[in-house]
């Protein structure tokens, strides 16, 4: 009897716990969207009311914030180029290397992996000032593509390690069949291995994408002019411009936060897999 009460009680507690956390996680985003479509007066007078006339003007006010018209749009484009460059650099360099490393003799392969693993423990705080100095000297500041290269290189160790682990488990029979069919080693990689690794590459790429999309520590240093900034850095100045216009601030937050969430919902299968299988990203 006591045992059943105890187990029912702990079940109830677990249920309250998980739904409580769900609420804590989901409500902020609902409120961002709610306040983003409310006029500032209504946010102050009836903040929690769900019956209101949507104030779409907030979005145009947010879009036109900053020194130039459509600054948020520019931030989006900058983010896009930065992330795309980071993905291109990390995947193009790390994926072939991770594949061909599986053919190295075990002793050498082990040394390679330790060397790459060391790259995962270098903290960003050590890198930002030298990055700024070098980018400044070579005149590469304020260009999202060059900043994307830095993000891409920092993502190489993780990409390499996760892809290498995947290729080690790759069925050798397929590779050998390709060899029998007269394919060169490079063609085996391109025509057999790559098409069969798309899922894994997407999963690993998403880890890079999430990180490069959200990080501001490196971008704030390499992209100081407002027209070159990605959304993660641009938003920082944005909040200051709108301390009085709460509606527009929340419209801006909606524009920044909701697209990645929608993208994530569509790709959640890959994201979950990518994270569960490695759990190590920058």
């Amino acid at each position, binding site marked *: 009897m006591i045992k059943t009460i105890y187990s029912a009680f702990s079940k109830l507690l677990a249920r309250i716990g998980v739904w409580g956390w*769900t609420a804590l996680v989901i409500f902020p985003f609902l409120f961002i969207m709610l306040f983003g479509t409310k006029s500032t007066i209504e946010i102050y007078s009836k903040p929690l009311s769900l019956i209101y006339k949507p104030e779409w003007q907030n979005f145009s006010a947010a879009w036109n914030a900053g020194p130039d018209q459509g600054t948020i749009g520019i931030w989006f484009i900058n983010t896009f180029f930065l992330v795309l460059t980071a993905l291109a650099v990390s995947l193009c360099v790390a994926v072939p290397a991770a594949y061909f490393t599986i053919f190295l003799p075990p002793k050498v392969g082990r040394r390679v992996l330790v060397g790459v693993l060391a790259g995962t423990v270098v903290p*960003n705080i050590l890198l930002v000032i030298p990055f700024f100095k070098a980018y400044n000297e070579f005149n590469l500041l304020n260009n999202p593509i060059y900043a994307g290269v830095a993000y891409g290189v920092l993502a190489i160790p993780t990409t390499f390690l996760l892809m290498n682990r995947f290729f080690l488990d790759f069925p050798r029979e397929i590779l050998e069949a390709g*060899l029998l069919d007269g394919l060169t080693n490079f063609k085996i990689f391109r025509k057999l291995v790559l098409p069969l690794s798309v899922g894994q590459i997407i999963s690993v790429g998403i880890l890079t994408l999430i990180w490069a999309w*959200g990080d501001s520590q490196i971008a704030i240093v390499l992209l100081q002019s407002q027209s070159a900034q990605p959304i993660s850095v641009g938003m920082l100045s944005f909040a200051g411009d709108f301390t009085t216009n709460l509606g527009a601030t929340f419209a801006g937050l909606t524009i920044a936060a909701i697209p990645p969430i929608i993208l994530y919902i569509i790709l959640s299968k890959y994201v979950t897999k990518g*994270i*569960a299988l490695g759990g190590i990203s920058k």
Partner: protein
Amino acid sequence: MAEISSSLAPTKPRRGRIFGKGEVVGLDATNIRNAKWALLPVFLLLIIFLGLPIINSFQLSLSRWGGIGPLQYVGFDNYKYLFADEQMRYSARITFIYAFVVAFFVIAIATMLAAAVSSGVFGHKFMKVVWFFPGIAPPTAVAIFWSTSFQPMTGLVNIISNALGFRNDFAPLASSDTALYPVIFVGIWSAVGFAFLVILGAVEQIPVSIREAATVDGANIRQQFTKITLPLIRPVMFTMFTLELIWTFNGFTVVWALTNGGPADSTSILPILAYKEAFRYGRFGTAAAMAVIAGIFLMIVGTIGIRLSRSKQ
């Protein structure tokens, strides 16, 4: 990393060439040459973007530099200055507190959530997707949201607290004594999702047969969790704790967007203090010295973490 380290022992490659009768002994040894060529850009880029900057950081930390012009060598002056500096000591202390508290709660909450989801609580598929929202939204945006939420009267936290009949002048971000609490809260809130997915991945790798055996032996859910699940996922939890510690210690975005390090530098963790020192006050030398102190500590933590998680296997 626990899983990655298992890849440190590559399966034995079968080397050799195709012998007569089409018998395949292994893949062509030219792949070894390919590996060398493919690894060349990896190590070249890592040396340029990681190796050289580390050396450069040390060099800068021994110099005075205002952002332009040549470096002026000053020996260990920057370090001497920092070890005597009150703000530096305070920042080092709160960075430790912030990183350890956040990492601890993130792992604790993530483990409990993973246990609940793996036991098939109602709605677990929905929760699994939703719980990662805070990790996927740009940290800047969520931090700005929380910073408006903690405003007195008009902030969401106070609106809800008022609606529930409590006070609405709760302003933790306005005072140096309390500003660290919301920073810790948002740090935990935004990091749990990732750790949850990693730990859940580990929980789901436990073979069903082990649990079934435990059920046959009469173990209840709680016993199954403490006696079976927990010991088996401990290496992953440990790795995740190390990573979370490093990321939080190194975390710039959330704190910067939430408080700018204020009020009165009360939430200036080391990455923020170093950023301000360099890019606000133009003292790149002392900033580099801060980075070196923090960086050495983090690399020690990271190396110990990797070693321990490897030896636990």
